[in-house]
């Protein structure tokens, strides 16, 4: 067995990392991914393009203490096509120019130093493209079993 992979599995068995982190580490060690890809692909002219994520998934599990609803867990599972996100961000381009100043002023007064006129559609496109690598895992603490997962698939 690969020495690095063995170390990852030992860390998982010892509880130092969870299953998701172990999987990410193993994938990063595989040829064609992460730091191992540079030398592995040096002599290999072909490289499989990474499949782009098609959907953004948001999964929320909240217990009674979070929702205030009695009767058990509340779960929310939303799947949104990435194409819908791209189309949705273009709505920002429909904001009239005279409204930009009002919005910028309102944002800065609330401590958000953001200038809407400087945000270009290509910036938002690039942001959505990088959402492919987004993974958010939030687990509740101190008896709170609330979980939030955001990822692309």
């Amino acid at each position: 067995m690969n020495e690095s992979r063995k170390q990852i599995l030992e860390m998982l068995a010892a509880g130092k990392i969870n299953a998701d982190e172990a999987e990410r580490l193993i994938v990063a060690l595989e040829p064609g991914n992460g730091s191992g890809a540079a030398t592995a692909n040096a002599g290999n002219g072909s490289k499989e393009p990474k499949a782009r994520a098609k959907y953004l998934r948001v999964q929320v599990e909240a217990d009674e203490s979070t929702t205030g609803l009695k009767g058990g867990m509340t779960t929310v599972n939303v799947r949104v096509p990435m194409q819908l996100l791209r189309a949705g961000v273009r709505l920002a381009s429909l904001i009239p120019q005279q409204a930009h100043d009002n919005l910028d002023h309102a944002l800065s007064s609330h401590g958000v130093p953001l200038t809407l006129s400087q945000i270009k559609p290509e910036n938002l496109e690039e942001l959505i493209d990088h959402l492919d690598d987004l993974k958010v895992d939030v687990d509740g603490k101190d008896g709170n079993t609330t979980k939030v997962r955001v990822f692309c698939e």
Partner: protein
Amino acid sequence: MIPTLALVQVQNPHWRGFRCWVPLIMLWLPLLLLSPLILLVLLMACMVGRVNPLRAITTFWGILWSLPGTHVHVRSQENQVLVRIL
């Protein structure tokens, strides 16, 4: 492609829930007939808001075109709501 079918499912312990397939294509046909009026209203709104009407139309069309594949599932206690756009 524009969404043609939607699945709506509601479950509730107090009354019999339902599950129905909504043929969205039946919505698009009347909208197509009303499209000249809708376009006129949209053009007037764009003129008032000083927005490029062509950009507005392409943006909303892009949103409509991207809706298929959207799933929303909410479950709380014994209640459940599911909406799928196909």
